[in-house]
């Protein structure tokens, strides 16, 4: 197991290297550049200096080598748009915010989704199943773009229970966490229900039941750990997604997370920020997938890590 983990972690390095190279090249394919704007510098010379300052006048492969050199020293370069902030500054400032928002939303999604899926599966065909399934599908069908403004309208503007947006206290997080978490709770409920149903009709459960094992014990100790497998597989990428921010929710609630940076930097062709955030996302994604695999092996004896 330990050797497996070490191998996977070592594998991260060439993958990240490849991803950084691809991202670096791909962002340059997009038309327009970081310094295109309504008010141009007073003279072309000024513009040339600007490009030279950020090494944008050199051939792409040299820019990349320069960039790589920076990364190896832990420096992701300067932002071309926020010219006093480095990519490191941006990540240091926005990542914790996204971690909090994403972590809470993830917990909420799991907290609602798992029990909802679990109980709708057990009560298959009963009223609770229909209601629960309806709710989970409703959650999936109402995107954050709709749910967010709706929650704001009801709870922030009409009832004034929570602030409209911005960060400041735990209260500020309630609506954004709900908006972000509820959608995923629906998806998780669906996955959990599917997983549970699959397990409930498998032979070993039948056998256990016919042997007279108590229903609670059967469900919780035998079925649940296997039924949660699809949710687990899904939760790796989901958590990576949530932890690196959500543009929609951050925009609606005015939250200074990573999502806004990711979208805005793409729009403004802020190359170092885009590439830096892509690397961060890829890193988190691979790490969490590894974690999921390890947990899988832990839970399910049939899974062999090799």
């Amino acid at each position, binding site marked *: 197991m330990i050797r497996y983990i070490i191998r996977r972690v070592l594998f991260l390095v060439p993958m990240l290297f490849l991803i950084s190279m691809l991202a670096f090249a791909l962002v340059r394919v997009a038309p*327009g550049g970081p310094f295109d704007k309504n008010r*141009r*510098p*007073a003279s072309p010379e*000024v513009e040339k200096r600007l490009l030279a300052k950020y090494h944008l006048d050199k051939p792409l492969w040299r820019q990349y080598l320069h960039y790589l050199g920076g990364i190896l020293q832990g420096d992701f370069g300067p932002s071309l748009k926020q010219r006093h902030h480095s990519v490191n500054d941006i990540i240091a400032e926005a990542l914790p915010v996204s971690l909090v928002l994403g972590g809470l939303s993830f917990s909420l999604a799991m907290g609602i989704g798992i029990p909802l899926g679990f109980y709708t599966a057990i009560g298959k065909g009963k009223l609770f199943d229909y209601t629960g399934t309806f709710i989970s599908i409703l959650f999936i069908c109402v995107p954050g773009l709709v749910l967010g403004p709706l929650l704001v309208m009801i709870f922030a503007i009409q009832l004034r229970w929570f602030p409209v947006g911005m960060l400041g206290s735990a209260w500020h997080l309630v609506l954004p966490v709900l908006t972000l978490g509820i959608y995923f709770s629906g998806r998780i409920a669906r996955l959990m229900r599917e997983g549970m149903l699959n397990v409930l009709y498998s032979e070993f459960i039948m056998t256990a039941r016919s042997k007279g094992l108590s229903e609670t014990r059967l469900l919780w100790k035998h079925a649940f750990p296997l039924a949660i497998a699809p949710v687990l597989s899904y939760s790796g990428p989901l958590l990576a997604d949530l932890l690196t921010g959500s543009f929609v929710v951050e925009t609606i609630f*005015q939250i200074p997370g990573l999502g806004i940076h990711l979208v805005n930097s793409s729009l403004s062709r802020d190359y170092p920020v885009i590439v830096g955030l892509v690397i961060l996302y890829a890193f988190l994604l691979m790490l969490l997938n590894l974690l999921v695999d390890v947990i899988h092996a832990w839970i399910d004896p049939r899974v062999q890590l090799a």
Partner: protein
Amino acid sequence: MLILRNTLESLSGVFRFLLFCLALCLAGCSKMEERADLVICNGKEPESLDPAILTGMPDGRVALALFEGLTRYDPKDSSPLPGLAERWEISEDGKTYTFFIRANAVWSTGEPITAHDFVWSWLRVLHPDTAADYAGNLYYIKNAEAFNTGKLTNAAEVGVQALNERTLKVDLVNPTPFFLELCAFSPQTVVPRQVIEKHGDRWLHVRPLPSSGAYELVYWRLNDRIRVKKNMRYWDAQNTASEVVDFVPVNTATTAINLYETKQVDIIWDKDSIPSELLPVLRKRPDFHRFPVLGTYFYRYNVTRKPFDDPRVRKALSMAIDRKKIVEKITAGGELPANFLVPPNSGKYRSPEGLPYDPEAARKLLAEAGFPDGKGFRRFSYIFNTSREHQRIAVELQEMWRKELNIHVDLKSVEWNVFFRFQTELDYDLARSSWFADYSDPNTFLDLFMSNNPNNRTGWRNERYDTLLREANGLSDAVAREKVLQQAEALMVRDELPIGPLFIYQGFNIWDPERITGAYTNPRDEHPTRTIKRLK
């Protein structure tokens, strides 16, 4: 059994860890952020607060709270008032200014602000390595352009020098009637040499950051807020109205208005932060302020492409536009239809009338140019940066040109950066455009279309136009100058039309006159923070 126990243990371990994280998060977040005395919704997140580098209005608003120039804006009409200079003398030919800096002008960290600081700050803007977009605003100073473009390397030859600690002498190329106003503008403010030389690009991260304006920087959190507090050592500190001010960047207009309605923000300055769908409702409220600003909406022709190289074609297109319909039907904010470039209120200047709305004459012109009833006129494209308002205006233009001239235009919505790249590379037929004044003088609009101006972006080069502008700016008599400027503008909006002007912008602000004092509306949409206070 063992596996099960392991499973549960590991799950509960993970769960405990998650709970721990949650607790940590909540503990971290629940430390309440004290509300500032004044919270301003400040439009887009500033790209920079460095007066030499910034170009955006939101950036400038914060920078001017932190750094001051020789003059500062009057909040009522944005005219220049004495700032760090208590007085000045202007030579008879209007080309030499001598500024006398206040004895009590000090940085927020206590050191005196001297004339040498000003020389250093201005030269920094001009130094090619700074790559300041606004360096052109200092070109009115002798040898500034040569120094900025690298033709002159000796900074001592630039026409700004410190005669002593408190006296600054500035030599200009021409008598420049708007020079005092430029001195209040962010590129000409004084910045802390002591910090910038030591920390380079990261100087704004230094705390305490020496500031020369009414406020000092507390923190700048991207996409969250910029917090400033009163600079107790500011020469006019007794008149600084608010102690702590937050500048909040907002990404969407809906969020901005929600924050305002629930009193999380006190003021909205930018038009972009007001949802256009709500305008009909908001317009009737006492906290909605509407006023003409120094900004023009127009479109550019690429005159290097056929058939737009023919002025008759450009005129025809422009004369087929019913501008009144556009401002009434689409923008609907009380905008002034314009067939000229320079907005009213640019000093005492009055623009000449441009070409009228006259579809009949337009058709005739088009026929003269070889396209009777639009026959043989190639399909062309009109680009605009993605926005609903631009889109609606473009659709209207498309329809007008089709109806009146029987010509067909394809509309192309493009991303912001790509939009300007197309313009710079003259890779377009027609492009939606706008311009806002840097100072209250027609020159800020007219010099855009001089042959060598990097913001020209039409390919239009007209020697007579250049000569007229140069001549005007060499005149010290204001009336005579305006006459020549009018000739230049007439040449552009009556005879040549490298652009098609559409309307003059209206500025929108939202603030409650019963809760806010010291805020005013003015044509430059310039609102010095130092006078503004929230009552309760």
